[in-house]
């Protein structure tokens, strides 16, 4: 099959489908028509797209945790706890790392070992192994919409099982669940695999079932400049809508500087709409997702609460539709349900206190927005140019050329040439542009800002600055200043 951003051929899809459903025994449980009926019978309060639409209209910022354990009963208890004690507006099901690599045998071993020793040996819920019926048991045990969150390059079977299982939202995308999550998977491969997922969602939509799709915004979570993650979000959005997706949540991971983060949240839907329109794609519902700081956290719980709260405040002032919540255990390990609910409640307190306050439109904000818009457009226009108008083709070529480049990504299909560093106000800028297609004006803006920091710190910008920035929040700072 040749790569293109066009809608998948129905026959091709059906042929693949048989293979996909045969990858693990639970594939046999999937029956599309029956699944459509199941979804249609779900109360509106459990349908993600419906609740997101309501929130968007009312200007609400919803909360969602991350959570998943090996066994069904424990997973249900965990989610109910987060709903009841954490007040989570949306629930997740975080998938374990073996399932993410399609290693269902190892996931099975993890399930069995967890049963034997009585604690979860997996870092998430192995939904494929548990199968459709188990997923539905989960849906029926909670009151709010549930989303699949993972990091799976090839998530076709996972999507089949979980969507048939009643999940109404599916995270991920061909770039965002490849580049940060694998080493050896070509982008063309994940684009195809995710076109399958999006086409599946499109089929549900065509049958009157609303499924929300959410590209994973933060990528590697570590000093990713907004224009890079925005470019990826827009591409994945465009590719998804081409397959029939109707409801998109676009994500962005907090960088830490308020003005830059608010600017990022405000520009993200603008850019998505612009490129959807440009490519002649139909109108879809776009909402925004803000991730509290995704990089290294402080080990101390009190400090972690500070980081969490600052993320909540930024989400509220940036008017994100949803905020993904961290926990006071972040630096140390998968959180207990108590720690997870605590992170939610801290977040909610701040959101509530700020929900009626707005961040004023100022010159500084206008400048940040201008920069983000210009940079993202530069990348996206180059992608389209390289792809001769085709986003899928352009994406593969853009990664080859380093036109899109994600910092600290493990994938060998990512150029890995750019180096981000904070400026003196904590905004994430670029120290090395690699092959990003930025014009001279943009480049000198970054250079000046970083040079200013260098002067403030009395040192030349270098890789040491980047390392210091990686550690900074974990050590109680935002900007990684040299130790005095």
């Amino acid at each position, binding site marked *: 099959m040749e790569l293109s951003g066009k809608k998948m051929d129905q026959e091709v899809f059906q042929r693949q489908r048989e293979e996909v459903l045969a990858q693990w025994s639970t594939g046999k449980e999937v029956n599309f028509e029956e699944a459509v009926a199941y979804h249609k019978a779900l109360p509106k309060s459990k349908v993600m797209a419906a609740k997101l639409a309501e929130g968007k209209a009312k200007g609400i910022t919803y909360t969602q945790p991350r959570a998943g354990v090996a066994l069904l009963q424990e997973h249900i208890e965990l989610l109910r706890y987060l709903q009841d004690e954490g007040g989570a507006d949306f629930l997740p099901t975080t998938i374990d*790392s073996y399932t993410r690599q399609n290693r269902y045998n*190892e996931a099975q*071993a993890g399930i069995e070992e967890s049963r034997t020793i009585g604690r979860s040996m*997996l870092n998430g819920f192995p939904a494929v192994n548990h199968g459709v019926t188990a997923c539905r048991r989960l849906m029926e045990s909670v009151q709010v919409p549930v989303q699949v969150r993972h990091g799976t390059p090839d998530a076709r079977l996972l999507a089949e099982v979980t969507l048939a299982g009643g999940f109404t939202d599916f995270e991920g995308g061909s770039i965002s669940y490849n580049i940060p999550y694998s080493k*050896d998977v070509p982008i063309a491969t994940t684009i195809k695999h995710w076109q399958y997922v999006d086409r599946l969602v499109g089929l549900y939509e065509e049958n009157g079932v609303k499924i929300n799709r959410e590209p994973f915004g933060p990528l*590697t979570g570590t000093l990713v400049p907004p224009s890079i993650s925005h470019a990826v979000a827009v591409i994945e959005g465009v590719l998804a809508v081409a397959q029939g997706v109707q409801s998109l949540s676009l994500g962005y991971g907090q960088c830490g500087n308020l003005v830059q983060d608010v600017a990022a949240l405000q520009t993200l839907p603008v850019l998505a709409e612009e490129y959807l329109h440009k490519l002649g794609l139909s109108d879809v519902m776009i909402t925004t997702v803000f991730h509290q700081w995704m*990089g290294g956290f402080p080990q101390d719980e009190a400090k972690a609460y500070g980081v969490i709260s600052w993320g909540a405040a930024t989400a509220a002032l940036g008017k994100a539709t949803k905020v993904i919540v961290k926990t006071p*255990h972040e630096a140390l*390990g998968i959180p207990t349900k108590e720690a997870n609910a605590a992170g939610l409640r801290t977040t909610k307190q701040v959101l509530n206190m700020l929900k009626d306050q707005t961040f004023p439109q100022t010159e500084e904000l206008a400048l940040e927005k201008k920069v983000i818009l210009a940079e993202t457009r530069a990348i996206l226009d180059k992608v389209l140019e390289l792809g001769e108008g085709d986003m899928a083709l352009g994406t593969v070529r853009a990664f080859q050329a380093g036109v899109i480049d994600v910092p*600290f990504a493990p994938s060998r299909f990512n150029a890995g040439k750019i180096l981000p560093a904070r400026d003196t106000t904590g905004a994430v800028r670029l120290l090395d542009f690699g092959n990003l297609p930025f014009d001279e004006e943009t480049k000198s803006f970054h250079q000046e800002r970083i040079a200013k920091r260098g002067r403030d710190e009395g040192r030349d910008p270098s890789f040491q600055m980047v390392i210091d920035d990686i550690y900074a929040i974990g050590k109680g700072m935002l900007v990684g200043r040299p130790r005095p």
Partner: protein
Amino acid sequence: MEQKTLILGVIGADVHAVGNRILDYAFTQAGFKVINIGVLASQEEFIQAAIETNADVILVSSLYGHGEIDCRGLREKCQESGIGNILLYVGGNLVVGKQDFAPVERLFKGMGFDRIYPPGTMPDVPIADLRQDLGLV
């Protein structure tokens, strides 16, 4: 002084790449020869790299919580491969969840690791240990 060779990698289905990048940089700066096999590395890849380069130490990272499962049997495989005495270090967020470090350390000692590091260890700690264990001080 002769340059010592280290095998560095992140074991199992783990993709956490940031710490790996920093360790690579820090060990190199400290004068070691670093063979970085990156993320998603299997036990076999660690051993093969060690044999090929006649390495002195294997440094295993595991961040994502499956370290306990992924690291089991590594010492035995080393023995089978004829590098049974190679130094084995391991660090990261080794188990699922926030746990006391003492039992985690015991667990990995029991698996045959020589040094076990708690979450958030800064590079200067293993560098000092390496110098000591390799007789560079």
